[in-house]
């Protein structure tokens, strides 16, 4: 159990949220020009690293808004949460 700071509602318990996977993956501008491998790379391949990772989260049982989170997957330390469309506060 850990506390997540929703950029809209404030601090809430983890059980109210759901994780939506890696963040900042850009959709290719011309999908028709991609090979099957490139398309599969965009669609399925995710980093899932041990360390600081950028993720999308949804406040499912609260405001139902999507936001981004910088989380260390090795110790669950949350470095920052920020709204969709905003630049990550940590590089």
């Amino acid at each position, binding site marked *: 159990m850990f506390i997540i700071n929703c950029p*809209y*509602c404030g601090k809430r*318990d983890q*059980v*109210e949220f759901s994780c939506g996977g890696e963040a900042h993956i850009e959709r290719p501008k011309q999908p028709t020009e991609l090979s099957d491998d490139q398309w599969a790379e965009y669609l399925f391949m995710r980093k899932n690293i041990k360390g600081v990772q950028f993720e999308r989260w949804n406040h499912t*049982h609260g*405001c*139902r808004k999507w936001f981004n989170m910088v989380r260390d997957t090795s110790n669950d330390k949350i470095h920052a949460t920020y709204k969709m469309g905003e630049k990550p506060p940590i590089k």
Partner: protein
Amino acid sequence: MLNFNSPIQNEKKYNEIKITEVEPTIKINLRSNKREFSTKIGKILSILPPTEANTSSGNENYSLLWLSPDEWLVYSKNKNQNFKDQIELEKKLFNEISKINQGAVTNVSDHWVLFNLKGNKIYDLLTKSCPFDFNEFKKKKGSVSQTIVNHINVIIHNNENNDLNLFVRRSFSEDLWLWINDSASFL
């Protein structure tokens, strides 16, 4: 609201807790991110939609709850409000907002069931199965929180000291009602 059948129709009293189902009340969901939306709501309801998170605004007839930056829930405080007036309000909101693409107006009167909880131990009851921290919430009249109680999604509105309104989805209302009654009997 035409064939409204209350799922609970009950009122229970326990040691320092009183639980009532407050129905029928009109509940309308409002969604918009347009600038003119606030002034339109202000004109129709005489209340401005709150912009601060987890707060509400209201007058003697209606309460307007913040649900997210572009979503609000308006509900009638008057249980015995005339059915015609409710339809009129919905129509007015629909014509002024939905019809001219200023946002979305949805009547959710049958979607949410409203419980009123009163008494000194209501927060002891909720914290039995709710992850939300009520310390700041109970100090501030008009606070709103969307959270889970006994794994069920709820909206909680702090009316005044030790008096709160709890909205639960109709299909979960009986389950939550039974859980509340069961838990309250052990307090």
